[in-house]
């Protein structure tokens, strides 16, 4: 038995080394010295990223296809003195991580569509009370129980508008296992830096796919921690207006006794209904995200300089889109790829500029058309926006996108 395993391992090793030989040159250029190469699934990479970012508290509830994150953290967290708990539902899971963050630990939870819906109320609580947390949503087919093990991008709008009331939110969407690792760290950094919940939106395909990840050496990781107050407790204003719009945050037990409430509150944290204070507070919550756009919004573009057609895709679909763009380019079609890494805040400047330069934007999505509406809004009629949707629970293949590109190209040429 053991021998069999050994042999298998050797075969696998050989296979991977051979496979990688052809790619080595490309990768050597890209990778920083000292990085480690490991084979991980998206969910595993998420755990590694969270640990690298300094997660100290996890609460969750089992749900496909996000469960692996809980399972692995239940093993890893106790070993580093972190806290893991499985709660009775997703409502209490997010409540517990908000509590954990208030007590000073970097906290996260992981779930999928149905659980994410249950979390929405307390997600709003974390927004209004400005508690840093990271929520991982590995999307599956919905609505309701839907297609639990199939790929989907149905939660794009839920991630933006799921909680009630007006708010801003940060949503990151990786398209590879390696990016899951990097964006999980980034999600923690953003949440700590801006004192706000950050959502990491993965597709089921990204969560379960296995890929090679290059782990950078630990000292190279940019890890941001929340700013703690430096003033004496009697001077501390927990929701003070600061130049960055982000007030320093004290943990319970630090000696800064203050009040946290889901009611709209004044700079001291106490409930208020005074219109001037309410306006100031709400504007600050908006501005701390809006004015940080240059830091938050990340968009990748490929082959876009001379393109007349652009494919705008995010998450796993952008991989098919990339292949389709490469194939179409080989055939002489001038097409490029634009990939928002940050889904929200919406990269409206990039999209608006893109609409100035191209004739058509194709938006392939694994839903009935969610992000495409937003693209249309900022394209302002300056170019055509063509949705390409797949809703049968299967993955969009490069050929479908290629077909769409060629069809659109035919129309454009005419």
């Amino acid at each position, binding site marked *: 038995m053991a021998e069999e395993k050994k042999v298998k391992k050797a075969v696998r090793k050989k296979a991977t080394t051979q496979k990688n030989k052809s790619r080595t040159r490309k990768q050597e250029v890209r990778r920083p010295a000292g990085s480690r190469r490991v084979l991980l699934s998206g969910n595993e990479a998420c755990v590694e990223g969270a640990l690298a970012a300094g997660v*100290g*508290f996890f*609460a969750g509830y089992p749900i496909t296809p996000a469960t692996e994150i809980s399972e692995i953290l239940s*093993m890893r967290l*106790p*070993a*580093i*003195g972190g*806290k893991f*708990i499985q*709660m*009775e*539902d997703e*409502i*209490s899971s997010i*409540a*517990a*991580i*908000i*509590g*954990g*963050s*208030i*007590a*000073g*630990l970097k*906290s996260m939870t992981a779930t999928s569509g149905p659980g994410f819906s249950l979390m929405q*109320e*307390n997600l709003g*609580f974390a927004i209004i009370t400005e508690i840093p947390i990271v929520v991982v949503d590995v999307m599956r087919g919905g609505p309701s129980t839907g297609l639990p093990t199939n790929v989907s991008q149905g939660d794009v709008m839920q991630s933006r508008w799921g909680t009630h009331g007006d708010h801003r939110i940060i949503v990151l969407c990786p398209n590879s296992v390696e990016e899951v690792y990097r964006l999980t760290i980034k999600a923690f950094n953003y949440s700590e830096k801006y004192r706000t919940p950050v959502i990491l939106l993965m597709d089921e395909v990204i969560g379960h796919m296995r890929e090679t990840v290059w782990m950078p050496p630990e000292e190279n990781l940019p890890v941001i921690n929340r700013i703690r107050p430096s003033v004496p407790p009697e001077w501390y204003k927990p929701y003070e207006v600061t130049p960055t719009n982000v007030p320093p945050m004290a*943990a*319970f*037990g*630090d*000696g800064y*006794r*203050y*009040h*946290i*409430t*889901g*009611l709209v509150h004044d700079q*001291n944290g*106490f*409930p208020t209904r005074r219109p001037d204070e309410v306006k100031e507070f709400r504007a600050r919550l908006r501005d701390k995200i809006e004015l940080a756009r240059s830091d938050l919004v990340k968009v990748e573009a490929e082959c876009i300089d001379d393109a007349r057609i652009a494919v705008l895709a995010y998450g796993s679909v952008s991989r098919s889109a990339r292949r389709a763009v490469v194939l179409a380019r080989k055939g002489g079609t001038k097409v490029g790829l634009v990939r928002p890494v940050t889904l929200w805040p919406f990269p409206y400047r990039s999209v608006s500029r893109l609409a100035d330069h191209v004739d058509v934007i194709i938006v392939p999505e694994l839903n009935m058309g969610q992000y495409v509406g937003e693209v249309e809004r900022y394209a302002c009629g300056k170019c055509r926006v063509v949705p390409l949707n797949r809703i049968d629970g299967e993955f969009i293949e490069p050929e479908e996108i290629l077909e769409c590109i060629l069809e659109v190209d035919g129309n454009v040429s005419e």
Partner: protein
Amino acid sequence: MYRNDLLYKYLRSEKKFPHLWCPGCGDGILLGALIRAIDKMQLDKDDVVVVSGIGCSGRLPVYVDFNTLHTTHGRALAFATGIKFANPKLKVIVVMGDGDATAIGGNHFIHMARRNFDITAIVINNNIYGMTGGQYSPTTPMDAKSATSLYGNIERPFDICDLAISAGTAWVARGSVYHVPMLDNLIVEGVQKKGFSLVEVMAYCHTTYGRRNKLGDPRRMMRWMKDNCVKTEKFREMNPDEREGKIEIGVLADRNFPEYCEKYSQVMKMAGYEGEER
């Protein structure tokens, strides 16, 4: 120290008063009892966390000078779980109403009892949703009138203490806003008990419940409480007929179960963690 000085020591007196409770409400009596209990135990204010949900009881933490958290409806115990688990050194006290704890938060309530965190829950039971205008709650007596049971309530009420005991709460007590010195002591005992402890506080809502059910003003409702609350030693000697309509007050259960954070520190050791515990 004079009583008033004591209150000023713990209240956010310059910032948050007058309070929003109706004149004659029992919530203020509980607030006083909580402060006296904490003073009796000489807890460091920095180490005390008071968490609440939504409703009249939910507004209690804003008045006290501790680390205070006013959460969403029914979720106070779940937030408290996070705080206690992340920093077990903190003394976490959760204040909830009857609807908060046993309707919308019922699931969190029984699971907290099962997990046995060293947290104290105080449930103010006024048999009604007061803040929203008097709709029936899981503890509204059968046939009682409320804003949503104008023909009389047809649901059987929960006995919160029985519920807590059967869900595995380590220490369960019931007090009332009439029996104030006893309430002080129950809170002290509850907080000092290792494990999850529950103090159900019998209160009344004259504004929305008393008025509809013709139970009179706060004085009459208070008198009813005096006449019908029976200390547990005496209650246990009564026969079932005599018990009818009476409320048992005192310590109803005192058991020892393994505490969650202590069990978890064993898990950390098993996992190979050798560092200092937070």
